[in-house]
């Protein structure tokens, strides 16, 4: 009985901690705070935006984004130049994250978390259209030096099989 109560309480604590991480990540992305966003990622992070459901081999089929840490750092450094015209000025954005589910926990403590998002983006570089992006993110999260960090983020857009407008910001 005591053990069960303790587990529920631990789960609640973990869920709250995961939520705080994802909310922080979302706010940093919304506000184009690229370096702080990158600091939430592990050294072996993988950031993947597949061209459909994430059930294919990305070594044989093309993806919108398939970044390892090195390429993700390059992406961020490009944004930081100030002359990445597709994000100059940065798009004002706000996203809502919901339907969060802790899907599994590996033996090494890595947690898999699914969540839905809706993102409103003002395409401020040219057309000034309000663009809506939606999908499901799957995060792989593990503890590094006591802090939860993101080891993988896969974003399955609902329109991933379709032609997309400029996606030069961080999803």
């Amino acid at each position, binding site marked *: 009985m005591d053990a069960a109560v303790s587990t529920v309480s631990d789960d609640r604590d973990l869920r709250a901690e995961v939520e705080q991480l994802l909310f922080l990540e979302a706010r940093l992305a919304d506000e184009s705070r690229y370096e702080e966003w990158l600091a939430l990622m592990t050294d072996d992070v993988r950031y993947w935006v597949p*061209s459909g459901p994430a059930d294919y081999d990305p070594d*044989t089929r093309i993806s919108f984004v398939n970044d390892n840490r090195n390429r993700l750092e390059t992406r961020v450094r490009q944004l930081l130049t100030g002359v*990445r015209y*597709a994000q100059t000025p940065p798009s004002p954005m706000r996203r809502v994250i919901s339907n969060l589910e802790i899907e599994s926990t590996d033996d090494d403590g890595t947690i898999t978390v699914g969540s839905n998002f809706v993102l409103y983006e003002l395409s401020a*570089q*040219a*057309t000034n259209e309000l663009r809506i992006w939606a999908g499901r993110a799957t995060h792989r999260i593990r503890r590094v030096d006591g802090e939860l960090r993101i080891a993988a983020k896969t974003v399955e857009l609902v329109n991933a099989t379709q032609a*997309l*407008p400029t996606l*030069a910001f961080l999803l």
Partner: protein
Amino acid sequence: MRPIIGTEPTGQITSELRADDLMQPGRVNGLAYTDPAVFEAELERIFTGGWVFVGHESEVPAAGDFVTRRLGLDPVIMVRDRGGDVHVMANRCSHRGVTLCQHASGNTGSFACIFHGWTYGLDGALRGVPQPGGMCSDRETLGLNRPGQVASYRGFVFANASGDAGSLDEHLGPGGIELLDWACDLSPVGELQISAGWLGQRVSSNWKMWAESDLDGYHLGRLHASLWRVVPGSQYEAAVLAGENVVTATTRDRGRGHVELEFWRGYDRQLAWLGVERGQVADYCEALIARHGSDRAEELLWQGPPHALIFPNLFLGEMNLAIIDPLAPDLTVHHHTPLLLGGVSPEFNRRVLRQSEAAMGPAGFLLPDDATAAERMQIAFGHSGGWMDLSRGMDREQVDARGDRIGHVSDEVTTRGFWRHWAELMATS
């Protein structure tokens, strides 16, 4: 008079606009991008009246494999039948006009309409009609509609809806043929393997801005400065970025609207285009020598792939293919796929795939900036248009022994070559 963009731009493009309203020596008016009547005329004279690229045969390797595309605005299916032949036919039921394929690609045994169930074979013949007793038309005449002409070269499938565009050979000309051969020659077995799927980039601009910016050697240093700052050492540094009086790369107008940037003439090393040293792809180099002999193989290892437009909609974008898909005067999809090669290692093609993801598409390191510039062009021309200056390098362009116009890599030789052919097709009286 100085050399002009159009040959003699005097014909009628729309009932309102004459060619010389849109084109004058060294300049083109933005109305050519914004006027709906110009777009309508382009659909008729270029995208249904002329040859356009549809797809590559290696996209549909097995019987029943299909992809969906457009000829202008008209949806088509490219499919391989059980006998191995590749067909291009309307994605439109001959009964009441419902699209048959909803997906971009797939495999099927037949095409069945969701509305009343008419069913077509992989060759487009009408096979099945529910409740056939009431059928009054001859089913032999009700196969899927086909473009007037379909032809392929080295696996590149082209179609012409009208059927009176002359031969594909005439359309490609020696310049176009050479470009397609060149792309295929990079494979040690002479075959492309277009199998990684396509990404689409949706842009609120006219289609012609893509034919131009894909072949513009002048903008790289400015518009794409953010990339060179964070990825130093690319092949473009020596070829384009080193400065106007230093670079030796050139631009070439091969005629018939097929235009090219010859970055390779400015490269400073072999295999710069692949970003590797020779030792990393020793097997590839050996296989290329075995196929082509040492001279041609060494030349290919230096040159890499072509960077060229096959008029009007196929971009041979180095290790990418792209299709320019016009949807409206101010709406275009730029599709791309990596130029994977037959006869190379999985690691080789994986490198090509990763490079394609880095450069191209809506999240690539290059093309989003081109999209932003194109969208701002479209906005800038508003309702009234306005002149663009395309005279750069007119005074220093030369005609070589083959009759190609050539110039400095930053010169607008390619853009003028594109518009010159556009004017020939559009300014019919």
